[in-house]
């Protein structure tokens, strides 16, 4: 029986690193990288006698995220200890939330193949990240422990098993990422692991009501990996069921080199984490006034924004979706459009440039929006020069690229690089006359209708104008002179 007789059932668990300056339970910086054990203190080293000191910013970010996702915010949530031994876990327990997480319920809507789908969330909770184990740090094959990352704040966002395909899983992850980026609580970086996801995957026969046994897949650090891993795992489980073999509940690791998932040898004991309320931290209180304040501070969320772009500015839905994926880009777009008068025409042009040339430059440089030297005022100025015919399309590209890299004033770039377009009809006419006079044979052939040599003449004129002639003027003049008129 083929895969199509089966239904995949997926739920995602996302761990998102919060963009705080300090760790969740101590004042060490969350800065990435650095020499091992340079961003540590007695608290995040788990030394004897030290206590966790919760950051208020982490709670604010958690509540903000919960509100954006329509969750219920608990007035009183409780931290819990999850007990297990591992070298990257300094205290022998992770401080997380268990029975009373800060956010519950809620969900988000995604669009797959033109259909809308609501994916419910189970919960969102706050917890600390572990450190990092480094392998083969010495000749004898020993491992090393670096606790710089230990205690970095995470939100764990758990979905219900509402997703039914790899496409839906990828869309869900993209939508969630874009919401977190919009809120400014996470940098969305899958490669570096500051936005990571585990997938719970099971299969059942279509029409069945009971879910199959699920496997938890880890180690997917791109959307492509998620898709590959889910597709592989669904195939694997269907084959097992078809062969009459059981699916084992286990944790599996995605191997990006082979595009496969494989079993992590199950630790010798079934995990018994012995959760209990963290006695070192009082319950976290979120009064109604704080919820109201954060609700009022919620930015426009990506789906609402995209809908507004389509309805009010006439953007194609695809273009709108790309713009809103990242709040800084959308803000850039809004500012540019406003500077250009705010109409659909301005919006279409700004969107084309942002999703085209600017996106290309972003890909090339890897610069996040906000880190560009190009400003909305810059782009608006370029569009203005282009619309007014002062530069050509090609010239505009060159200007944008230079400004993107250097932050220089567009007009100055046009000047310095001699990109000003010649639109003066008189000047162009003189050149056209010169070109036609120099090529009487070609003029004759063209006029006799033997061959359309318009392209040849345009090329000659442009060459004489060093590429800076306004094509519209050049074309109009040539047509006028050659057309026998």
């Amino acid at each position, binding site marked *: 029986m083929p895969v199509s007789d089966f239904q995949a059932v997926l739920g995602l668990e996302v761990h998102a690193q919060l963009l705080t300056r300090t760790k969740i339970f101590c004042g*060490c910086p969350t800065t990435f990288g650095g020499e091992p054990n340079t*961003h540590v203190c007695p608290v995040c080293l788990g030394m004897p006698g030290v206590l966790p000191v919760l*950051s*208020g910013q982490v709670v604010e970010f958690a509540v903000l995220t919960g509100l954006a996702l329509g969750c219920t915010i608990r007035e009183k949530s409780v931290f819990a200890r999850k007990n297990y031994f591992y070298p990257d876990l300094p205290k022998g327990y992770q401080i997380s939330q268990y029975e009373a997480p800060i956010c519950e319920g809620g969900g988000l809507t995604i669009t797959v193949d033109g259909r809308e789908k609501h994916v419910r969330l189970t919960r969102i909770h706050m917890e600390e990240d572990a450190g990092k184990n480094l*392998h083969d740090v010495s000749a004898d094959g020993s491992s090393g422990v670096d606790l710089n990352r230990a205690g970095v704040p995470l939100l764990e966002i758990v979905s219900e098993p509402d997703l039914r395909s790899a496409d839906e899983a990828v869309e869900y992850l993209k939508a969630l990422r874009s919401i977190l980026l919009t809120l400014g609580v996470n940098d969305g970086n899958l490669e570096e692991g500051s936005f990571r996801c585990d997938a719970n995957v099971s299969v059942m026969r279509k029409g069945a009501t009971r879910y199959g046994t699920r496997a938890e897949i880890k180690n997917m650090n791109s959307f492509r990996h998620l898709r590959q891993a889910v597709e592989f795992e669904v195939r694997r489980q269907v084959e097992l069921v078809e062969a009459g073999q059981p699916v084992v509940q286990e944790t599996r690791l995605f191997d990006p080199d082979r595009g496969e998932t494989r079993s992590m040898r199950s630790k010798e004991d079934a995990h018994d984490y012995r959760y209990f309320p963290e006695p070192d931290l009082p319950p976290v209180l979120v009064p109604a006034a704080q919820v109201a304040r954060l609700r009022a501070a919620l930015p426009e969320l990506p789906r609402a924004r995209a809908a507004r772009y389509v309805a009010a500015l006439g953007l194609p839905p695809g273009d709108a979706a790309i713009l809103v994926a990242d709040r800084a880009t959308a803000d850039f777009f809004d500012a540019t459009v406003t500077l250009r008068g705010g109409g659909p025409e301005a919006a279409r042009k700004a969107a084309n440039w942002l999703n085209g040339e600017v996106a290309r430059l972003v890909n090339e440089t890897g610069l996040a929006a906000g880190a560009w030297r190009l400003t909305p005022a810059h782009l608006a100025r370029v569009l203005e020069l282009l619309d007014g015919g002062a530069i050509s399309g090609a010239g505009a590209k060159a200007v944008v690229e230079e400004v993107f890299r250097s932050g220089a004033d567009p007009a100055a770039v046009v000047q310095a690089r001699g990109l000003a377009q010649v639109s003066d009809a008189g000047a162009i006419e003189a050149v056209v006359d010169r070109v036609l006079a120099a090529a009487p044979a070609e003029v004759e052939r063209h006029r006799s209708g033997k061959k359309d040599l318009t392209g040849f003449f345009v090329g000659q004129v442009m060459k004489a104008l060093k590429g800076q002639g306004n094509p519209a003027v050049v074309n109009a003049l040539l047509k006028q002179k050659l057309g026998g008129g």
Partner: protein
Amino acid sequence: MALSLDEVRRVARLAHLRLSPEEEVALAGQLSAILDHVAQLGELDVSQVEPMTHALAAGDAAPLRPDEPWPCLTPEQALANAPARQGTCFKVPRIIE
């Protein structure tokens, strides 16, 4: 309530304690005696009672920590008590994942 040796071993595994056979036997007896004493808690009907999970009254807690960095330890300080180190890492036997 008598604790079996198997139970003692299961708990020791969870707690990452290596016990000698003598310790296992002694603990089975001692823990059983303590659990017998503890069993008296079962006399009470606590179905309507909220657990006291925290000892500090909620209103007594101070505001949360502001998001301002504090000074870190130097790697020398961080590693001063380490039984073994490699560079600025804590060194442990090879970890097999």
